[in-house]
Each structure stands twice: as structure tokens, then as C-alpha cells.
């Protein structure tokens, strides 16, 4: 489902952040991507969703060669990917329902279908009663639930979450992770970038560790 081959990304005047790394994530897997700050987690995420280009190497996400795509092809490829950001990136002047509906609006879905799917996914994340609220009226945990709902509303094959619990306390972090696990149980391949050992140890999933430009497959969470 995700295949990274000999990927290198270097920024001018610095050693490579990612140096010839390769790994695979199979369809339906739940994988943690961890490492110290500056190890390249966010850079790798940006490359996976086509927001950054590697210096060399190839990347396939949802079986699509995202590093070889034109801007237009890349946009179409992103429609099978859901993304969750650490800082939520909810649009402040749109309601919860409007934020969640954005991926469906981009796809040109009918309004009735959009309303139904938005309600359904907000129910899944426990937020059906806050449809008309604005992001500023929500707590951090609620905002991240909305962000996850937005990432899931178009049923993506791959869900990429970059430090989704970075701004949340432990209790809320666990509840967010449960939502991501549930999305995985429904068939999505999920990659979660985190530096929280607590989360990794609690959920026994495969862990990829980034550091010193390389990547190491550390097996399941308990062994990290």
C-alpha cells in the first residue's frame, strides 16, 4: 500500500534528513513512525502526500507513484489519502460540518450525500452534536476529532496522521488513537507519526524508527 524505495531528501547546507531509506507498509496495516524531533517524520509525511519532492528515490502510496506525478495527477492521487495534522488545520471561519465536508465538496458529491456522510463520520468520532460549532468553540481534543472526521469522510485507502496527539494530554491522546485504530479496523492503512513512547507501548503495532537519516523496523510497539 505504501512503498518507499531508496528515498533521500536533503536540504541545502545540511546533511540528508532522509538518507536512502526504504520500507513497505502493507494494505490494512497500522504502523507507528517514530524518532526524535528533527528525525524527518514530517518531511517523510510531506513526501508521502506529494507536498515535497525527494532528491532521489521513489514513493508509491495507495499503489500510485506520487513522486512521478504531475500536479494534476498528484491532486487526484490525494483523493485516496486522508491526512491529520498535529495542529488540526481546521478552517476557523467554517463550522465543524463545513470543515468535514471539504473533501467531499472537492469530489463534487451531491449535497444530500455530503450531509449524510458528514453526520455519519461525526457520529463515529463522537461529535454529531457539534456540527454547527466553529473550531474556536471546541477543545483541542474535539478539534482533533473533527480533523480525523475530515480525514476519514471520503473513505481514504490510506490515513496519514502527523503527530495527531502532539497537542493533547494522555487521556485525549488515547481516545484519538482509538479513533485511528477503528479507521484501521474498517480497512484503512494507517501510519501515525509520534514521538510518544507511551502510545507506542500501549498499542502493539509495527513501529518504524527514523533517526540519523536512516530508518529501522523495530517490530511491534512493546519492543521500542
Amino acid at each position: 500500500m505504501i512503498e518507499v524505495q531508496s528515498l533521500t531528501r536533503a536540504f541545502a547546507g545540511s546533511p540528508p534528513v532522509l538518507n536512502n531509506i526504504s520500507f513497505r507498509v502493507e494494505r490494512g496495516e497500522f504502523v507507528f513512525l517514530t524518532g526524535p524531533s528533527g528525525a524527518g517524520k514530517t518531511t517523510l509525511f510531506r513526501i508521502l502526500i506529494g507536498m515535497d519532492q525527494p532528491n532521489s528515490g521513489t514513493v508509491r502510496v495507495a499503489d500510485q507513484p506520487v513522486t512521478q506525478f504531475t500536479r494534476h495527477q498528484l491532486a487526484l492521487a490525494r483523493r485516496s489519502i486522508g491526512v491529520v495534522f498535529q495542529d488540526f488545520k481546521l478552517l476557523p471561519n467554517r463550522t465543524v460540518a463545513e470543515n468535514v465536508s471539504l473533501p467531499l465538496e472537492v469530489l463534487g458529491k451531491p449535497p444530500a450525500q455530503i450531509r449524510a456522510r458528514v453526520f455519519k463520520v461525526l457520529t463515529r468520532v463522537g461529535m454529531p452534536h457539534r456540527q454547527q460549532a466553529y473550531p474556536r468553540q471546541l477543545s483541542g481534543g474535539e478539534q482533533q476529532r473533527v480533523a480525523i472526521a475530515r480525514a476519514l469522510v471520503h473513505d481514504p485507502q490510506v490515513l496519514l496522521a502527523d503527530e495527531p496527539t502532539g497537542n493533547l494530554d494522555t487521556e485525549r491522546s488515547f481516545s484519538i488513537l482509538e479513533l485511528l485504530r477503528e479507521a484501521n479496523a474498517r480497512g484503512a492503512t494507517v501510519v501515525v507519526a509520534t514521538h510518544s513512547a507511551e502510545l507506542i507501548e500501549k498499542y502493539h503495532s509495527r513501529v518504524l524508527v527514523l533517526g540519523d537519516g536512516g530508518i529501522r523496523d523495530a517490530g511491534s510497539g512493546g519492543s521500542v
Partner: protein
Amino acid sequence: MSETPAARQLQFAARLAMQGLARAPLTTMLTILTASLSFFAIVTAWTIAANLDMALLRFNEVVRVSVFLKPGASDARGKEIASQAARNALVREARYLPPADAAERFRRQFPDIGAALDQFPDPPLLPTVEAALKPGDTDLARVQAFAAGLQKLPEVDSVDYGKDVREALDRLSAAVYRIGGALALLAAVIGLFTVASVVRLSYARRAGEMHILSVFGATPVFLRIPYFFEGMFIGAASSVLALLAAAFGSSWVFSELAVIPESLYSGFGFSFLSWGAVLTFMLVASLVSGLIAMISVRPGAGSEWIE
């Protein structure tokens, strides 16, 4: 149409555009006002040019080329010259007017002084060939060539084609086209630059929104469509304002000009642009504003394109 995904995507883009404009109402209004001032200059120049064109056309309709033959020229020769003139592509009709007929017409046109002609033993007016030009042809050079050709005939005394008035109108028309065209071009550049600048500001203000839409699969073309709609709306609103202002302004100027006696300007009626011209202006202003707005946010055009 409304059931296809592409149509719904366009509707969504239009909503984004309207939301973008509504979020900065003051900026939107100021942009429309600024652009409408530029468009007003264009419409005004166009109105003046159109009225001068109309004046030239009207001049052609009412003024005839009069070929005065030398005294003693025979009626047969006069008819030949009329026939020759009628074959020219510029001429609608040409006829020979013997001195007696010319005198009779003079009496009809000027009854107060017409009786003075009776004091002459022979008709004092010269035999004349009168040629009416085809409406719509205002090319001065061709009329001049036509007149010069007639002047060369040995029986011809002189040719009158309203030379002074026609040349003055032609010079005025050329000057209006040159100066008005340059001013209109400058005004168009200023207006469109205003639209482009404001749309780029709007783009910068909404970078987060564009980022999210991009992450969830909006294509680069789709991301530009809301700005196309924004530009179109600004162009349409500005052109309507400019046209209204120009229409009221023209109406006032024309009503003031109505005091000029009709005989001084051959009964030419001033008018604002035709409905066709008005609609064309609105359409072109809207489309060009939309395209300029769309181009102004293209990747690499100086905007912070997030991808």
C-alpha cells in the same frame, strides 16, 4: 447539468469565491469602485468615438457631392457625367440637375430670396451633377479620390463634397481613436491590475483554505477557479457601475447639446452605446477580469503557491 460532479464542483468554487468577497466587503467595494473608474474612462472614450463615427455616417447620408459644370456644358454631357459618377462604388445615386431645375429647387429651399433669381434673364445657377454617397462608407481618402477624378473632367468647374467639415470630422475621429484608445488601454491596464492585485491579496488571505483543499485532492485548476469567479464578479460589477455612470453622464451632456440648432450639425442625434455594445463590454470586462484573476494566482506568478 446540476447533477454532474463537475457542475457541483463549479458551484462549490462559486461559493468559495462569494465567501472570499464577502469576508472582505470593504476591499471588495473599493476594488469595484477603482476598477469602475477605469472602465468609465474606456466607456467614455468609446461613446465619443462611436458618436463621431455616427456623425461621419450621418454626414455621408445628408451631404452630397456636388459637381458644378462650367457654363454652357450641354445637358447630354451633364447626363453622361452623372452616369459616370453613378458607376463609382461609393455612389448610391447620381443625377444631372439642369440650371432651370437647380433654380427651381433654390426657390423651394429659400423662398425668401428665391424671387431674386427672376431678375436674371437666364438661370444664373450652374448645371450640376449631384451624387449621393452610400451610407456607411466614411473613408475620406476614397471620397477625395472620387472628387479629384471628377475635377479632371474638362466640363467640370468645381467639386464640393463638404471638404472642410468632412476633413475636420475625420481628423477629430482619428485623434479620438488615437488618444482615446491610448487612454482606454491605460485605463484597462490599471483596472485589470487592480483586480489582479486584490485577487492576489485574497489568495494570500486564504492560503490555509487553499492548502487544505489541495491536501484533499483539489487540482491546481480547481484551486484557481474561485479566483476566476471573483475576478468575473468584480469585472461585472465594475462594468455595470461604469456603464451606468457613463449613461447618466452622456444623457446629461446630450441634453445640454440639444440647444444647438439642428441646422448647424445636420440633424445628427447623439446617442449612448447600443445594447449590443453594452452587453459586449460587460461580457468582455467580466471574462478578462476573471482570466487576469486566474492567471495572477498561477504557480510561479509570485504568489505563495502551497503544494
